[in-house]
């Protein structure tokens, strides 16, 4: 992976150096997990829970999603989700819900970057 490729991933909110470190420096493993993330249902589960207006479900889904994003070093997405999880935990469903566009934006950026770089 070239430095400019890394730079692009970083602009999309992916801390690629940290991710590489997590996977023992193996680009192959990072690639495997990034691709796996495309099929991961955490985001759609979160969306569905928020849509339903179910605060408890939304909390769980955001929590799980946050864990996955942390493990893959999606720093921007992880940051938004961390704030959202706290709102849901405190019972501020509306405030959490208001973060959904930010979540979605960060999510789309990550997905696009992955699709572009790990074809």
């Amino acid at each position, binding site marked *: 992976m070239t430095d400019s490729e890394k730079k692009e991933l970083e602009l999309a909110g992916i801390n690629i150096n940290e991710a590489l*470190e*997590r*996977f*023992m420096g193996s680009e192959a*493993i990072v690639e495997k*997990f990034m691709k*796996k*993330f495309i099929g*991961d249902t*955490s985001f759609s589960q979160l969306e569905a829970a928020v849509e339903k207006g179910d605060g408890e479900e939304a909390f*769980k889904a955001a*929590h*799980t999603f*946050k*864990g*996955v994003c*942390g*493990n*893959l*070093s999606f720093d921007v997405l*992880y940051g938004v989700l961390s704030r959202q*999880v706290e709102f849901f*935990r405190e019972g501020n469903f509306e405030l959490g819900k208001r973060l959904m566009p930010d979540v979605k934006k960060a999510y789309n950026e990550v997905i696009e970057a992955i699709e572009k770089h790990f074809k």
Partner: protein
Amino acid sequence: MKTKDDCRIFKTTPETLLIVDDNEINRAVLESIFSGEYLIEEAENGKEAVDKLTLMGDNICAILLDVIMPVMDGMEVLEELNKMGTTGHTPVFLITAETADSTLKRAYSLGVMDVITKPVVPYIVKRRINSVIELFRARKQLSQKVEEQHSKILDQAERIIQLNMGMIESLSTAIEFRSGESGGHVRRIHDITKYMLEYTEFGNGLDNETISHIALAAIMHDVGKIAVPDAILNKPGKLTAEEFEVMKTHTVQGAHLLEKIPQMRNHAAFKYAYDIARHHHERWDGRGYPDGLKGDEISIWAQIVSIADVYDALISKRVYKDAFPVEKALKMIAEGQCGVFNPKLLSSFFDVEKKIRKIYESGVDKYDRQ
């Protein structure tokens, strides 16, 4: 150097890591960190984890547990593991994006070894988890070793007790041998005394250890006979008054002899042995010897050995007499022809006499008793 034992321990060391997380990517991340060192087993939710643990139990060396999961969450799993006693011997780690204080507190109180926050940092996770697994392994090996040594010590103690008893029996038998008896007599006195203490009211309040000490002491009741000359000890006919006086000294001499052996003096059975040797010829009516003790002044054990001794003497052949049939012997005892006994002891003895007779029917003793 590795011994055979070490290898055995090594072989039984569990080496499967159970990863519990509902998200596949999270599981895979942990798997990629640990798959080089451990076998990996995965579970998608708490229930699956508990099921796998029940199935694989001892093969699991650590559990990495997520908190928020469907079906059964991490806290419920912890509660279950706590109930199963798993947390005592298998380290459980909480791997979680959860940072709420109350959750962590509760997790620790439920026996979690450590809490590791997501996103995981491989170097740290590895280090923390490996050292705890190592600790649990070492602890297990150590307790296995201690257990082995403990049972070895118990074995040795048992052998020493057996040897001790063997020595005491040998001494007593050697002395009895002078009057033409075999080892059967002392063995039977031991067995009858033990039986009476275990199965009649006369053993009330005595624990098993005390009973075995008393039974051992009973073996030595006649050691004082070593001080009685052959001519008197083995005289086929009736003893003269003077000879009988000498014969009677075997009680005092026996107690004296036991007292002179330091190892015996320090033995837990000593006080019983001393008392039995000295007083097994006392009589309930106070007309026995050497001290003329009366009634309850005579200890229970001396009384029991006394009746056992008379019973065995009657139904065995002796240098001065033939063996009597059991029925006749019982009649003689009941009629007071062989001494006066505590009436309660007599009735207890008659109650269990049929059982006691079984001791005589065992092969060795039958062979012994000519």
